[in-house]
């Protein structure tokens, strides 16, 4: 079966602190890396995808054009859909659609950021945010930041379903088991459940080790048409299914224990014609441990409320458990460039399908992988993006 599009180039920038590079430069470096991986050149690129991390985004509407100008791109299609960390997962799907519609043949997607070099306190201080957002005046006086917003979701999940800090800790433990094999990972020490629950409380009930790293760097993807993919000397990683859906606050009738994955997940599975039990490897956005747990439930890997038991006892550790997750060490241990996790999630899934993951974490016979991300706040408004990828 031929897919409408394939991922033929991936690149993850090795830097985790980019004091000596500009944001635009990082975008260029990841583009170069992904093109080299695919065996293509900038002249082959006819579509560009970027989101709010692009250099110049602070000039609304014009940042992407500054980036295209800087890169020297000569393209006939572009898409600047922004949904924070899930943007790049959605971009893969959008690029596949554009390729199927005949708008382009070779799409470049880039992400980069340097929050560490810029010294941003990204977890405990308000992000730059439009005061014109309708809800801003009803929320900003109360001090919502990233960590306490995700804390709200975790606290409610614990209340409704009896989820424990120890169960959440298993998600970090799994990430650390994987990160020990990744020479680029920021945190390579294997940790225990006790280490996690004994780490300092940041925003109840989330401890420091429930939180992802802050890192500089970035990544890029090349999505191509079937005709182009067949000319490249790369394993054929097909886009089989996708979904993209928002979560809102429902006029105050909120449910903080679920995410937009309840819509994007089933849609992606239906399009691919597969079920959660068929997935051999999953990249699940891990901004926090609770993010993984709620997304796994909403994607159907276990029933709502069962996530705590599902992730326990090493289930997510490659070679030990039933569902290896984030074998690069994820955002919790490896890399979270620009505070946006979607790009590295796609990259590690492609590595797994190509059998290019680290041998210690490579999943046997890995032919079907899922990628999922939440962009925004789990407790409130976010965009959920799901991708199902298959090696042909």
């Amino acid at each position, binding site marked *: 079966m031929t897919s409408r599009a394939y991922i033929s180039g991936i690149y993850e920038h090795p830097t985790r602190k980019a004091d000596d590079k500009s944001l635009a430069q990082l975008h260029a470096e990841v583009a170069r890396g992904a093109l080299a991986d695919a065996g293509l050149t900038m002249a082959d690129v006819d579509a560009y995808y970027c989101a709010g991390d692009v250099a110049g985004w602070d000039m609304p509407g014009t940042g992407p054009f500054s980036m295209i100008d800087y890169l020297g791109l000569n393209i006939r299609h572009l898409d600047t859909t922004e949904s924070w960390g899930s943007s790049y997962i959605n971009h893969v799907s959008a690029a596949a659609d554009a390729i199927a519609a005949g708008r382009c043949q070779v799409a470049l997607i880039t992400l980069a950021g340097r929050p560490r070099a810029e010294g941003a306190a990204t*977890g405990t201080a308000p992000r730059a945010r439009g005061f014109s957002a309708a809800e801003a005046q009803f929320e900003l006086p109360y001090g*919502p930041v990233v960590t306490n917003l995700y804390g*709200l979701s975790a606290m409610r999940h614990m209340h409704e379903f009896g989820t424990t800090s120890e169960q959440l800790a298993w998600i970090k433990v799994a990430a650390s088991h994987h990160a020990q094999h990744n020479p680029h990972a920021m945190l390579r020490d294997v940790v225990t459940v006790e280490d996690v629950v004994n780490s300092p409380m940041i925003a109840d009930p989330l401890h420091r080790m429930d939180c992802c790293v802050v890192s500089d760097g970035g990544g890029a993807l090349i999505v191509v048409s079937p005709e182009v993919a067949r000319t490249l000397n790369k394993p054929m990683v097909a886009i089989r299914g996708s979904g993209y859906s928002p979560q809102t606050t429902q006029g105050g009738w909120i449910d*903080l224990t679920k995410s937009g994955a309840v819509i994007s997940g089933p849609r992606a599975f239906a399009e691919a014609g597969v079920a959660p039990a068929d997935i051999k490897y999953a990249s699940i956005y891990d901004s926090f441990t609770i993010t993984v747990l709620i997304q796994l439930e909403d994607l159907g890997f276990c029933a709502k409320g069962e996530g705590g038991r599902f992730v326990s006892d090493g289930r997510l550790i490659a070679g030990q458990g039933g569902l290896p997750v984030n074998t690069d060490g994820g955002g919790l241990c490896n890399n979270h460039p620009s505070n946006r996790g979607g790009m590295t999630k796609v990259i590690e899934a492609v590595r797994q399908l190509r059998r290019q993951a680290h041998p210690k974490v490579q999943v046997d016979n890995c032919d079907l992988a899922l990628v999922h991300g939440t962009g925004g706040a789990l407790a409130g408004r976010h965009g959920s993006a799901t991708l199902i990828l298959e090696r042909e």
Partner: protein
Amino acid sequence: MSKQRIIPDPVTGPDTRQYWQAANEGTLLIGNCTACARTYFYPRPHCPHCFSDKVELIPAKGGGTVYSFSILRRVEVPYCLAYVTLDEGPSMMTNIVECDLHRIRIGDRVRLVFHASAGGQAVPMFTPTGHD
């Protein structure tokens, strides 16, 4: 005296003046749709449930329960971010104040209080009623 958290001023708009004026007079207003008979928060000139513009602002009685909360500790003055489910139905983002933060639990009954923002706007918050 312990340090107080500085509450950022809400940046209000022409469609929310009544809400903030009422807050300064000690009243919390919520949205009520006369077309579909459902309440909502935050207030806006249409119903987020059915998009009718037959909506009104009604005063909340001021009682509610803690839906969820999180105490941000890694800042100079720790504070409790929460969603409180109002007795009228919808939940609103808020702070739980005037209490020992570490005794707050989901399901706690709370009542409405107002604290002034940096620029003097009264901002609705909640305090537990059963913590004595």
